[in-house]
């Protein structure tokens, strides 16, 4: 394999890892807990920003970029800090967005959060260096390990895979535990779950925060890899790509969501790299968004449960009378 191809494939693999993680986080919120978090990308952006400033070192007065905080933390710490910031931001947003309101109220508020966050980040230059964002973020471990550029690429793929495994372990224990079952029950019938004494708002908040942590970590890995961050690359339509991936893959199913991440953000958006450019500048990008939107609509119409649907969970009957009507906990209709 030529070096150029190795570069390309390792880059795509890192992107895939980031997207898979993000989709798991979103799936935990949307697929499992039924939270329509249209601000998902903001949590990813916050994590990315945290990791960037904690790697860049303190901002120098009169330097070419301004930002808050700044430190030279060694490798895994900025990524962990990104997770913490993603979670804290989720607590903050959740404190007013996740209340006992209708779900569409929630979605609407999340969309506003996403729009407003972008406009604040762009307008307040002191905060995140305005529309220019951050650049020249040092790569983790680059000075410590003595590797060729291509070797470093593969090292990064390894780090990403390792973190992916940790995130999978987290989402797996949540979704397969009684907690996951309760979250699905809340998603499918909130009143019934509340009537059974479940703390509906608290548990949804928990799912929201866990999703926020995962979003933060995924953003951190992306920024450490591409070494740059700008508010313009974290707009609300990016969240929609993840939503499409979750829906295409199979909302509520971790494996399905992974396939969705492989199909939509990676295969689909990468494929256009090989399409010859035509039309005025921005035309191809616009077409891409249109196709992602159409893809979401087509799947919601024909295969609303995705490529790999959520498993229907059946529980063994306990008494003779219940044997005739097996209980199911997943959604029955479409």
């Amino acid at each position, binding site marked *: 394999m030529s070096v150029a191809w190795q570069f390309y494939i390792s880059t795509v693999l890192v992107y895939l890892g980031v997207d898979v993680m993000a989709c798991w986080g979103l799936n935990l919120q*949307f697929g499992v807990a*039924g939270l*329509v978090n*249209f601000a998902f990308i903001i949590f990813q952006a916050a994590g990315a920003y945290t990791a960037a400033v904690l790697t860049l070192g303190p901002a120098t007065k009169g330097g070419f970029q301004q930002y808050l905080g700044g430190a030279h933390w060694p490798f895994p710490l900025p990524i962990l800090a990104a997770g913490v910031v993603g979670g804290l931001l989720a607590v903050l947003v959740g404190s*007013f*967005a996740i*209340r*006992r*309101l*209708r*779900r*569409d*109220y929630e*979605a*609407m*508020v999340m*969309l*506003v959060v996403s*729009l*407003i966050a972008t*406009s*604040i980040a762009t*307008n*307040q230059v002191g905060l995140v260096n305005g529309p220019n964002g951050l650049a020249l973020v040092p790569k983790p471990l680059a000075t410590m390990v003595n590797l060729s550029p291509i070797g470093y690429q593969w090292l990064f793929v390894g780090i990403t895979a390792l973190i992916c495994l940790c995130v999978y372990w987290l989402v797996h224990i949540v979704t397969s535990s009684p907690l996951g079952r309760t979250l699905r029950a809340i998603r499918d019938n*909130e009143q019934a779950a509340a009537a059974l004494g479940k703390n*509906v708002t608290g548990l949804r908040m928990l799912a929201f925060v866990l999703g926020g942590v995962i979003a933060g970590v995924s953003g951190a890995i992306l920024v450490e890899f591409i070494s740059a961050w700008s508010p313009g690359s974290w707009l609300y*339509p990016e969240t*929609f790509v993840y*939503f499409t991936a979750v*829906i295409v893959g199979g909302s509520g199913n971790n494996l399905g969501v992974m396939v969705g991440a492989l199909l939509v953000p990676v295969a689909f958006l990468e494929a256009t790299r090989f399409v010859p450019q035509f*039309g*005025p*500048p*921005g*035309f191809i*990008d*616009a*077409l891409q*968004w*249109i196709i*992602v*939107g*159409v893809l*979401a*609509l087509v799947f*919601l*119409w024909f295969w*609303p449960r995705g490529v790999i649907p959520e498993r229907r969970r059946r529980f063994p009957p306990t008494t003779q009378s219940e044997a005739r009507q097996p209980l199911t906990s997943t*959604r029955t*209709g*479409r």
Partner: protein
Amino acid sequence: MNTLVPAIGFGIVTASILAVAGVGFTLQFGVTNILNLAYGDIMTAAAFVAYLVTGAGFSVWLALAAGAAFGSVFSILLNRFLYTPFVRRGTRLFGIIIVTIAVSLILQNSLLAVFGASFFSLQMPRPASVHIAGMVFTTVQLAIIGIAIVAMLLIHLLLRYTKLGKAMRATATDPELARNCGIATDRVIDLAWAISGALCGLAGVILVMNVTSFTDTTGAQFLIPIIAVAVLGGIGQPYGAMLGALVIGIASELAAAVISPDYKNVVAFVILVIVLLARPQGILSEIATRKEVAA
């Protein structure tokens, strides 16, 4: 003082645009029960229709009518051929939200693909300035205020004094009960889309009449104050939205004058957060406590 009074003038203009947009948004949600996140992009599309009409040499008044007609027809078609089929197919509540945001993206990027990433402005005769009680308005702004007042009056007359208005309010409160009382709720819902679509188109055109230039994301950005207005007024409450528009319009322009123009939308956002924390059913809530907000 000398910056505050003109700011209130700007606030009244912003409030007028917000009132038209907010009442359309909230009416649609109240009657049809579909949260249409593509609303802002339909506004942008109507603005582009107006851009084409004025570009062809017709007057702004015709552009306003064309924008409203476009919004109305587009909304009916969108509901008939996309939203209703999805609802009939049993798509769940958050499925429908994803459908509307997909429509929003498709519409926004179609406009981008057709018109290109550039700044546009309506061709209008140069407006004169008018001084009223320390506030300066252009004739265009006075026209916007006039249009909003007429539109709000018409909506008030429609809701209070016509059979259709009564049927709409009944459908908004309890669609099943309304149907059982012999109201043709499907027709009422169609008409609600038509009326709110017209308000949406109208709002799109007056929004770009008031600014020097607009892009394919102008309407989507305007969704922040629209949602704040709708939530402040109690979602599904046209009168609440009118009041909410006045509060948010004036508050955001005052903040722009006192602090910085960047804070316009931030003020709307802060008001939204406070309302969500303190009174999620909105300032005017007759039915909201029971129907709209309860999860």
